[in-house]
């Protein structure tokens, strides 16, 4: 189950501190990257919430993100409703779409769940790609940013926008952590561990899964609204399954089911890709090799590995050396 351990808190604070320090010291493009990382971190946290804790490995989070972006874009550009309404539409739209997907796919598991979510995501993608109302594959330009001058913030300033996204990423983490520590979150972990038993205990499992997916979709919608404001332009590419795939890689790379690992994975992958592509067009090759190496080196993900080493050291300090450290990896039930 989820525990906000001191190590987790320290990692979150360290990452946030690093991000702020980087933001204050970097140039324009660094801020673009930082903003991208912050937005993807929200999305990755949303995915880890259902994938890492609910066992629902989704391949439609790119689509939820895109639905959020399009909800924001259509509210502001097409309907002229203004950014606050757009934000509400994005969060609500993401939640609603996700809830519906979660509800109808609740009976599928494993790769079947992955493919079912992919199917819904790709349908949304194909629809927007060919729909003239939303600009088809050319997308929608001219998306405005939220006017936060009442709070004394100018979101058109790159640094302010980056730090705002960062703050929202922290908020997304806090909300997710709080949810995972509630009865709702505990039950979600119960479903991942043994869905059938949860049902026999009287839980309406599909409703719970759909609700969890809906919450995740709300966060993904928020990330989408931020992405739309960041680029001030939206296109169907946001919804493509490869976005979901890369996102899943971020979460697994950072450590599935660790929450903070999701954010870490987003940061590492974005900066790795950026740094490598400064030297070569063939960044796919390097990133691919890094992913393979990451698995061969431990297979727990970056944060998972950190936690593993930390606990082994603690166990070694606490217990005499002849006792082998308990391996926290578990293989289901006997």
């Amino acid at each position: 189950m989820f525990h906000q351990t001191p190590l987790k808190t320290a990692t979150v604070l360290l990452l946030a501190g690093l991000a702020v320090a980087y933001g204050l010291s970097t140039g324009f493009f660094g801020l673009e990257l930082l903003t991208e990382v912050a937005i993807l971190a929200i999305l990755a946290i949303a995915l880890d919430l259902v994938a890492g804790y609910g066992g629902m490995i989704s391949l439609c989070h790119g689509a939820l993100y895109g639905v959020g972006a399009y909800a924001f874009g259509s509210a502001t550009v097409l309907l002229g409703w203004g950014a606050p309404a757009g934000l509400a539409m994005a969060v609500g739209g993401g939640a609603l779409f996700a809830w519906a997907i979660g509800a109808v796919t609740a009976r599928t598991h494993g790769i079947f769940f992955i493919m079912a979510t992919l199917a819904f995501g790709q349908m949304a993608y194909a629809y927007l790609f060919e729909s003239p109302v939303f600009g088809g594959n050319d997308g929608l330009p001219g998306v405005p940013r939220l006017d936060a001058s009442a709070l004394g913030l100018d979101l058109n300033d790159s640094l302010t926008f980056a730090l705002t996204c960062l703050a929202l990423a922290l908020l997304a983490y806090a909300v997710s952590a709080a949810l995972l520590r509630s009865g709702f979150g505990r039950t979600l972990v119960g479903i991942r561990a043994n869905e059938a038993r949860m049902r026999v205990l009287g839980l309406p499992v599909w409703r719970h899964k759909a609700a969890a997916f809906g919450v995740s979709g709300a966060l993904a919608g928020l990330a989408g609204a931020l992405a739309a404001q960041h680029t001030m332009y939206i296109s169907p590419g946001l919804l493509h399954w490869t976005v979901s795939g890369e996102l899943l890689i971020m979460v697994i790379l950072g450590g599935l089911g660790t929450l903070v690992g999701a954010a870490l994975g987003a940061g590492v992958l974005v900066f790795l890709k950026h740094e490598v592509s400064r030297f070569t067009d063939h960044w796919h090759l390097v990133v691919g090799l890094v992913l393979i190496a990451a698995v061969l080196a431990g297979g727990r993900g970056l944060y998972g590995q950190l936690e593993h080493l930390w606990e082994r050291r603690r166990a070694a300090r606490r217990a005499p050396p002849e006792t082998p450290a308990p391996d926290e990896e578990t293989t289901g039930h006997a």
Partner: protein
Amino acid sequence: MLEARDLRKSFGALTVTNRVSLEVARGERRVLLGPNGAGKTTLFNLLVGELRADGGQILIDGRDVTGLSVDARARLGLARSYQKNNLFGGLTVRENLSLAAACAQGRARTPWADSLSDRGVAEAVDEVAQRVGLTELLEVPVDTVPYGARRRLEVGLALAARPRVLLMDEPTSGIGPGGIHAFHALLRGLPAELTIVIVEHDMDLAFEVADRVTVLNYGEVVFDGPPREARDSALVREIYLGTWDGDA
């Protein structure tokens, strides 16, 4: 309290439950006997709703639940334990019991309060842990506790659900004589108004605790009556003892 009428279930050409009828009164201790493959576990699966019956009716407290889902039946007070441990892997004993207790107390879906630290849930967990003798192991992950403790947790999960009707599928399988003794004590300590159906291989236990015995063979009820009659029945003796598998 729990009633089955004319239940039928086949897998292809194989009929595993053939017109089974059963009526268990409130507070009754019923033992289900029968050789391996007689359809006892299938009957449980049908009663709980994990399998859909091909025909017949199931009633809880007079209410027809045949069309209800597994979780809806559970919310009416039906709980079960499994012959093969069916726990929440990767979690501690306390977390396992909390999940069940939170469900029973309506704390499983609250998005604000933590069920793990909820007082009502924690009290229920402690009480059940004491009943099944797991107090010492509460903080240990279930995958590392001994087999006997996992068997007790299996029953504990069902108890933590605060059932009105409790179905237990071979709760003593695989545990030694000491464990069986402890289980007797546990059974005696359960509230009198709790309705219990036990699938059991251990005849002594069966005859000791049962108010009434039902014997299944090839998916059919071949005997239904008080334990004494069962013990004396030539038919039961032949079916049951003839294929008695001491190691099961």
